[in-house]
């Protein structure tokens, strides 16, 4: 019962390619949406549950991707090992960064995480010897799971969906445990949380690391799936989009963050039609949602419909 939502998602993910076989849209958009869901769900643990903003999450995403790219193309590591190494590096960096950065609050935290994201991005562009500079790195091999090479769109669809469901499952478990409650307590009132014996500094640090690991995992998948990485995929705009997904979903809800990620992916696909208007619409939408539905698109809309429904019933 607890995981009913997860099973439903799994069913939909499995049914889509059967209902629409060989459909480019389903697989490619599905893959892209899945990777974003992993990112959003991970960031939601930090932002939605623990209440700590990060405007630099694309950095961890990129570090995971580049670790895979560099280790496989330059050092011929197997893909899975490269992924594991990437996770280790990102985990360690996040842990080192967490203490000093999470002492900051509000705008200061926003500025610091944003600065971190920019620094990492500059390194990606400038450290040409390792990263290939602005042109990026090509020729990243696909994942190879015990001899099964993930080299078609459909196989990738399957792997990314499995990874996405895994991420959602982990996030649901965390949220619905004492760890998750402690994080929400930190968000609700740090005073009260400490008074109940929660070491708030430690709790924040650990969830920052977990959140970074989700991003690095998504990054590694992204690198192997695309076969190519360049700094453009990990810039400030991407960090802002990640925050947008979480906020759009309504914060502190795993499925909300996932829906936010899917909605933004579809919006991107849809806005392609408008080409030059994409930015304008994206910006206007962000402002409108935050002004009119501050609890997020999904929570806000469901509350609004409930209100309308009640009003209609009273009227009738």
């Amino acid at each position, binding site marked *: 019962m607890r995981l009913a939502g997860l099973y439903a998602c799994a069913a939909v993910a499995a049914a889509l390619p059967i209902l629409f076989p060989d459909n480019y849209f389903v697989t490619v958009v599905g893959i892209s949406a899945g990777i974003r869901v992993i990112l959003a769900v991970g960031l939601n643990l930090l932002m939605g549950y623990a209440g700590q903003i990060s405007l630099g999450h694309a950095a961890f995403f990129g570090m995971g991707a580049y670790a895979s790219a560099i280790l496989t193309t330059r050092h011929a590591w197997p893909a899975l090992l490269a992924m594991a190494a990437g996770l280790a590096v990102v985990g360690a960096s996040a842990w080192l960064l967490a203490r000093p950065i999470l002492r900051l609050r509000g705008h200061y935290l926003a500025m610091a995480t944003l600065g971190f994201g920019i620094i990492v991005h500059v390194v990606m562009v400038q450290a040409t010897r390792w990263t290939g500079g602005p042109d990026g790195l090509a020729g990243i091999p696909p994942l190879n799971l015990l001899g099964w090479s993930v080299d078609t769109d459909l196989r990738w669809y399957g792997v990314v969906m499995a990874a996405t469901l895994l991420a959602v499952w982990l996030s649901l478990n965390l949220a619905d445990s004492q760890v998750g409650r402690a994080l929400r307590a930190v968000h609700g009132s740090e005073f009260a949380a400490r*008074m109940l014996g929660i070491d708030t500094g430690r709790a924040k640090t650990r969830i920052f690391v977990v959140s970074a690991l989700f991003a690095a995992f998504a990054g590694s998948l992204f690198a192997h799936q695309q076969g190519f990485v360049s700094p453009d995929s990990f810039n400030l705009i991407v960090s802002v989009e990640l925050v947008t997904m979480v906020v759009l979903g309504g914060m502190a809800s795993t499925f909300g963050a996932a829906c936010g990620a899917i909605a933004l992916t579809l919006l991107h696909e849809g806005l392609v039609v408008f080409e030059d208007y994409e930015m304008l619409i994206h910006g206007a939408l962000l402002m409108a949602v935050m002004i009119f539905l501050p609890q997020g698109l999904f929570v806000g809309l469901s509350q609004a419909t409930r209100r309308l429904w009640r009003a209609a019933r009273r009227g009738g």
Partner: protein
Amino acid sequence: MSAIAASSPSPAPLLAVEALEQSFGGVMALAGVSFQVPAGLIYAVIGPNGAGKTTLFNALCGFYAPSSGSIRFDGHELRGLPTHAIAALGISRTFQNLQLFFNMTVLENVMVGCHLRAKTGLLAAALRLPQVRREERRLREWARETLALCELADRAEQPAGTLPYGLMKRIEIARALAARPRLLLLDEPAAGLNDTETLALRELIARIRATGVTVLLVEHHMPLVMSVSDRLLVLDYGSVLAEGTPADIQADPRVVAAYLGGAVHYAV
């Protein structure tokens, strides 16, 4: 030594505050406060606005770093300890301004209160290992028991933010109790309550004491304080004005003057 010294009075006080001073940028909020709270009592701290009552609580909890003096709790010096470590020693509190976790249900709020008894690791929780499920069940039971003690059992699944104010204050008490403290600090529990709720609060405080928890109470509602406390400490301008039983305090003219202010006379 004595762990949960219930009603039998132990010779060593549970809490001993010695010459505690707290200054903020030159302003003395606490100017050498000393008092002792024996285990098992309901001990109230009263005084006019700005007398330093909440400052005292915040110093006890490690929110402020006192300028000098000592706070000993059951043989441990509390000064310099971080708040969560103080909580782990067995002190819990409620807040003057509600610090409820409004985004959680009543039960979840109280389950956070059980945090000190939870041993779940991050990884185990993420994978939802069997021991996590067992612990969840244990914490839930514990929380439900505490809710029952506070007569909140039927509200368990409601979001805490949607309840009336009086119940919210009660949830905060339940949450603090869930930590199984030996000393419970209540910061103005009656503020904003109506008469019926205040009466129920008095019973609840008495029930809490009966479970062996020592209660330190800051409160303005004098009828409540006078009827429920065993001893009182009166603070004024950050110093101790008087200490004693409710009867002693009511007979003390200095207390009346501190509250009503000295008369100022001149021709009008």
